[in-house]
């Protein structure tokens, strides 16, 4: 019995299709591992970080590897974390206080009396959005565990004309005061970032 020429062709096409599927699965796995362990661009949405990020349509680079290698947070850096209220949401906030700091819960007095202070417990950080009037942050859910933090937001890449690498920098209240020759105790109360 002779093999027909179309059977050769079918076998060839089938092998090509199978290899293509394997490559696709391979690529998806590699992409997933890269996204979950090293970093990826992510779309920012929502008004809570307003002056830093626009309400929608901006893309930032989330670096997970940087957080895994250097988990010590710095005051003023941007982090992405799983929301304590809803485990399916990932939110972006700014670290305001580290473990041991005394924090004024809400200097504006919107969500808590402005005289209320808390000490951030061990292994936790205090996070806040930049847009105080429109942000759900540590004022609502208290200090967050560092186990909830996913990665650091290192740069904004889109729109291209607003490209920026975020370098954590904070201005302490007592530094401002000292320039006016006042001796204020601004320990940790630098919530006005």
């Amino acid at each position: 019995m002779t093999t027909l020429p179309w059977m050769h062709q079918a076998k060839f096409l089938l092998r090509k299709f199978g290899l293509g599927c394997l490559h696709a699965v391979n690529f998806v796995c590699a992409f997933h591992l890269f996204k979950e362990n090293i970093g990826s661009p992510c779309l920012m949405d929502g008004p809570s970080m307003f002056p830093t990020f626009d309400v929608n349509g901006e893309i930032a680079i989330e670096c997970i590897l940087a957080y895994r290698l250097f988990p010590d947070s710095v005051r003023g850096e941007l982090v992405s974390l799983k929301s304590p209220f809803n485990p399916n949401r990932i939110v972006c906030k700014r670290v305001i206080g580290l473990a041991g700091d005394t924090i004024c819960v809400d200097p504006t007095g919107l969500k808590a009396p402005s005289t209320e202070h808390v000490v951030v417990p061990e292994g936790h950080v205090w996070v806040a959005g930049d847009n105080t009037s429109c942000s759900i942050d540590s004022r609502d859910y208290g200090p967050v565990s560092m186990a909830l933090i996913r990665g650091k937001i290192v740069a904004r890449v889109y729109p291209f004309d607003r490209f920026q690498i975020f370098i954590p920098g904070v201005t302490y209240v007592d530094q401002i005061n000292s320039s006016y020759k006042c001796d204020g105790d601004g320990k940790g109360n630098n919530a006005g970032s």
Partner: protein
Amino acid sequence: MQPTFNPDTSAWNDVIIFDRFSVNSGKPILRGDIVSLRDPIRYKRTIVKRVVAVSGDVVKTLPPYLQPEVLIPEGHIWVEGDEPFHSLDSNSFGPIPLALVDAKLRYIVWPLHRLGSSRRPETIARERQQQSRVTKVPSTSCHNSGVTQSSDS
């Protein structure tokens, strides 16, 4: 978690199977489940605890905790170890966000004579005692209810 895992009678360390898929796919976590979660204080460690209460419940706390009663906030759970007073649990660090939960216990696979589900007859009394301190809300789901948050980046 002593009466549930590694009881004094067993010569082996227990081997157990955790189910991460059901947690990631959004199935609700129920009271009485055993879960593994990231330690909120020493955040690199993983701990195994039993869920005592879900969001909306009111729990009567045990000594290390400051308030006598606590309402579990939205998206949080209250976890405790099975061995009272030898466990660093929610009585020390308060309600736990659901996002810290890593996986849910399914089966004990080793040692063979304890093979089977994690519901052990010897822990039912302990579980009942834990549940007696909880004032439950009517709906049992904690995962899918009340996630009507405002948009927030």
